[in-house]
């Protein structure tokens, strides 16, 4: 096997083909437009000539003597009866014709000017201008010359110059007297006259491309392997589009030659010449503007050379950038909390198809022999890897079947390669589209399991943005030792717990795990021995912590259970999600149990919720990943998952519509509040009508009314939410989820229990629909609350028909916005990536592109890796002080309330994004009835 780079590409040079070169590389000259004879064999000098390679099994190539698949194919050529312009070069030809003299071919600039332009090019090259800038400059040169030619005579021969225009796509005209048409022959003669030395300032290297080569006298015919014909079931042959086009070219070429040689009238010859030009033009590009596309008999436009390369379905984007790969699998994903975050569950079906190549050595030969012996489908309860293929020294593949397994196993020698099935512990790459950041593709360890889905730990959902409503994911099996090593060190999930997006954890507990630890640790929770053992048994071999004894009964507190999974010397202090943000923080005396304090690995007080272990926010997680490394963080996350699942199972947890039940008294209060607000709005409208409304500065009277009404109605909604919230305490499951940050928000709850509130389109109350009113249910010009889209009801009490309609209007805007935003941000991302993809951080701290030009003198200007940063800051000075000075002295120095000024990638900003994303998902569900993915 070849390793390393033996030949490195220094540069690539593009050049034109000269007619000599076309003929030189041609295997045969093509003369006849026919392809096959009556027996179905290719005709000599026809388009399917066997000199051009073979596509049918059994035939032999007359050029290289090889058979199908061995012969790469060879070019042929057509000698054109008359020269024809190459559409791809019309712009260049136009530039050259306009910039040079019509009689002597020199560039219409004085010697001094040319010298100056060439000097400028040299300077530009020295200062590192790229090809684009150079081309831009030579365009300027050409423009200067053509402008000069418009006004003056040629400085060399004194010939008067005329204006030359291009009639799209391929006709040149010279304005001597009413537009004389230049034939391709004349064009070619002029281009021939341009001396080599005058081409360089125009940006053309005469060694690579003489301009007259842009007018074709010979046409290369691609090998048949490029345009294979297919045999239909009926036995008919169907030719490739390119072959069809070449047949047209040959036919007209033949007629043109005959007519010209027979001395036919000029008019007929010219018509045929133009027809030949048309066919050659469409052979290159069948979407040339200005001419009708050549069509197939069925009316379908032909797919010619340019169409093969261009666009999303073209060779570049579809086949080169978008190559499909082997050793990959795709299926639905589902969750499994018993897997480590580093693992992925692979179904047996997939594991038996995906293989890893293993080189046979004297140490593993016996194991591998046993594996081969098992064949491609070993039976038995327990999964044991078998072998699909064995590759011999001569790189011949032998398929292992149940029947030959034994004989193949016998014949195994050192340095054979055995393609064995996937087994537990193999490294694979796991990916979910859209792959927006590097955490969209991470390395996992295989765990082969029954079932038909890929299984993953729930903590890795946030980086992939995966859920389990039918999401599918891809898996790639690494095939080389280097790839596996790289994946292991750089791509494993545990190496990506901290995100470079904001210098915090992106992988962390979600949903039920947060609820679980909340139930476990909030307040003074107690578990008896049976419950404690049930919870701890979920997580490997943990020792039973010291029990607390009260009244002769042994029990364990939730906080001590949580402490078992913390590192032994772990210290941290912060406020949890359930923090009420009291004006004066009571710290240790917090009556909501929201002040979290961990000392020496023991949770002394506080509730473990989203702020502690959640993805994006988890403080404990963040600190463990930062201070103890990825291995520790992975262990912690795996333990948290299991501990939380254990805790929630012991306690039991459920939510339902009755969680939003509020007493009749509260309902009445909400009703009263809303009604009184309605009256206030009516008063506003009245004062607007009789002109007593005080206009706000910078606002019209109408705007004042709208702003005031919006504000009042907003307050009403908030008040309704507050009243409802009073009756929804922390013992309520839905509130527990909202407050601990597991799922949903208090706003969602108040909309379910209290009042949905004002519906808006473009930030304004609803106003459009009918003439001066939203719906015919209201009077014309009604500006009251309910006529302009206020929804008084809650999701639970149900909406009236008009309210439902208004709600749909507001909801539709959200849907449209999401659709527009995703498509636009996707395109923006694509452009950004194209611009940045090959920038690289070099050893000296500079960021450079592939040409080794400096892009940034210091990476990010401060040289900080955002992954290792603390929420975008280079160091967390408070934390350092605490570590060095001890808690008490550090407390005197730190001012945690001091808000940071600016900050370019603060956690809060990122959180706003994710929260609003989640909110949308929530909204969508209302309309799509759950929806897919």
């Amino acid at each position, binding site marked *: 096997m070849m390793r390393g780079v033996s030949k490195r590409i220094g540069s690539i040079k593009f050049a034109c083909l000269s007619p000599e070169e076309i003929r030189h590389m041609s295997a045969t000259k093509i003369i006849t437009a026919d392809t096959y004879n009556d027996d179905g064999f290719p005709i000599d000098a026809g388009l399917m000539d066997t000199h051009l390679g073979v596509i049918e099994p059994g035939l032999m190539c007359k050029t290289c003597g090889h058979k199908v698949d061995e012969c790469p194919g060879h070019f042929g050529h057509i000698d054109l009866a008359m020269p024809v312009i190459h559409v791809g070069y019309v712009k260049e030809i136009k530039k050259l014709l306009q910039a040079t003299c019509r009689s002597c071919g020199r560039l219409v600039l004085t010697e001094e000017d040319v010298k100056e332009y060439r000097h400028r090019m040299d300077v530009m090259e020295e*200062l590192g201008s790229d090809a684009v800038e150079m081309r831009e400059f030579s365009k300027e040169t050409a423009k200067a010359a053509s402008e000069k030619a418009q006004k003056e005579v040629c400085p060399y021969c004194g010939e008067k110059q005329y204006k030359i225009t291009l009639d799209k796509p391929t006709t040149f005209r010279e304005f001597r007297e009413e537009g004389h048409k230049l034939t391709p022959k004349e064009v070619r003669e002029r281009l021939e006259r341009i001396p080599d030395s005058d081409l360089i300032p125009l940006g053309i290297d005469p060694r690579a491309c003489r301009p007259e080569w842009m007018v074709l006298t010979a046409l290369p015919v691609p090998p048949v392997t490029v345009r294979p014909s297919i045999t239909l079931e009926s036995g008919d042959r169907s030719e490739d589009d390119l072959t069809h086009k070449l047949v047209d070219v040959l036919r007209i070429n033949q007629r043109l030659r005959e007519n010209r040689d027979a001395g036919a009238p000029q008019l007929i010859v010219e018509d045929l010449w133009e027809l030949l030009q048309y066919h050659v033009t469409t052979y290159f590009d069948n979407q040339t503007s200005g001419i009708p596309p050549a069509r197939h008999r069925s009316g379908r436009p032909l797919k010619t050379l340019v169409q093969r390369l261009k666009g999303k379905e073209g060779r570049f984007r579809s086949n080169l950038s978008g190559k499909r790969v082997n050793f990959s699998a795709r299926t639905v994903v589902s969750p499994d909390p018993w897997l480590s975050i580093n693992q992925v569950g692979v179904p047996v079906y997939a594991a038996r198809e995906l293989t890893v190549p293993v080189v046979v050595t004297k140490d593993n030969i016996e194991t591998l022999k046993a594996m081969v012996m098992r064949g491609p489908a070993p039976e038995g309860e327990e999964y044991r890897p078998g072998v699909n293929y064995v590759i011999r020294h001569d790189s011949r593949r032998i398929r292992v079947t149940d029947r030959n397994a034994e004989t193949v196993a016998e014949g195994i020698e050192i340095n054979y390669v055995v393609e064995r099935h996937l087994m537990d512990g193999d490294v694979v790459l796991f990916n979910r589209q859209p792959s927006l950041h590097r955490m969209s593709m991470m390395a996992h360890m295989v765990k082969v399991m029954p079932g038909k889905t890929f299984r993953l730990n729930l903590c890795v959902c946030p980086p992939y943005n995966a859920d389990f409503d039918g999401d599918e994911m891809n898996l790639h099996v690494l095939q080389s030792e280097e790839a596996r090593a790289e994946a292991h060190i750089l791509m494993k999930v545990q190496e990506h717990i901290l995100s470079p997006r904001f210098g915090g954890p992106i992988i962390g507990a979600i949903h039920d795990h947060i609820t679980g630890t909340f139930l476990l640790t909030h307040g003074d929770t107690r578990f008896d021995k049976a419950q404690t053992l049930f919870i701890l048994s979920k997580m490997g071999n943990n020792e039973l912590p010291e029990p607390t004894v009260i009244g002769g009964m042994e029990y364990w507190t939730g906080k001590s259970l949580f402490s078992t999974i913390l590192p032994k010397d772990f210290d941290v202090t912060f406020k949890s999600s359930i923090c009420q943000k009291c004006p004066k923080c009571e710290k240790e005396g917090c009556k909501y149990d929201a002040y979290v304090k961990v000392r020496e690995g023991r949770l002394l007080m506080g509730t473990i919720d989203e702020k502690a272990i959640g993805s994006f926010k988890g403080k404990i997680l963040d600190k463990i990943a930062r201070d103890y490394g990825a291995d520790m963080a992975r262990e912690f996350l795996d333990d948290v998952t299991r501990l939380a699942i254990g805790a929630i199972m012991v306690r039991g947890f459920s939510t339902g519509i009755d969680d939003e039940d509020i007493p009749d008294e509260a309902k009445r209060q909400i009703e009263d509040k809303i009604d009184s607000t309605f009256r206030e709005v009516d008063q506003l409208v009245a004062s607007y009508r009789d002109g007593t409304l005080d206009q706000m500065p910078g606002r019209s009277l109408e705007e004042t009314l709208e702003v005031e009404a919006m504000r009042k109605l907003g307050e009403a909604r908030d008040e309704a939410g507050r009243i409802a919230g009073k009756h929804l305490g922390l013992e309520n499951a839905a509130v527990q989820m909202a407050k601990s940050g597991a799922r949903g928000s208090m706003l969602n709850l108040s909309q379910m229990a209290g009042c949905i509130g004002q519906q808006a389109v473009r930030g304004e109350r609803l106003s459009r629909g009918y003439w001066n009113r939203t719906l015919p249910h209201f009077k014309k010009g009604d500006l009251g609350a309910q006529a302009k889209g206020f929804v008084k009801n809650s999701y639970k009490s149900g909406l009236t028909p008009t309210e439902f309609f208004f709600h749909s209007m507001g909801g539709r805007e959200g849907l449209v916005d999401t659709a527009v935003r995703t498509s636009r941000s996707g395109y923006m991302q694509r452009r950004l990536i194209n611009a940045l993809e090959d920038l690289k951080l070099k050893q000296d701290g500079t960021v450079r592109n592939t040409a*080794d*030009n*400096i892009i940034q003198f210091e990476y990010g*200007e*401060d040289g900080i890796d955002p992954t290792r940063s603390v929420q975008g800051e280079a160091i967390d000075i408070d934390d350092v002080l605490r570590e060095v000075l001890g808690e008490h002295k550090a407390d005197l120095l730190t001012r945690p309330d001091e808000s940071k000024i600016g900050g370019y990638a603060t956690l809060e900003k990122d959180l706003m994004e994710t929260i609003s994303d989640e909110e949308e998902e929530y909204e969508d569900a209302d309309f799509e009835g759950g929806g897919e993915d």
Partner: protein
Amino acid sequence: MEESVPFNVLKHKMVPVHELLSEEEVDEVLKRLKVTRDQLPKIKEGDAAIKTLEKAMSSSIPEKSIIRIIRDSQTAEEAVVYRLVIRG
């Protein structure tokens, strides 16, 4: 000298400090960064900052000169970059 510039863009608070490097400084910078001139980012002669700098110094800044720009940075307090003067 100040009066010769009707509006000095370099004094605007959004415009970072531009300085022309002397020959010795150029050598030092190129040596320190281990680069040749062509690998530096560019700034055009016609750039308002360059034109103002020329007027303030009352001498022209030739092509191939190197300008040091010291600007405020959100990440580092201050970021120093070098740009090569080119035609245009």
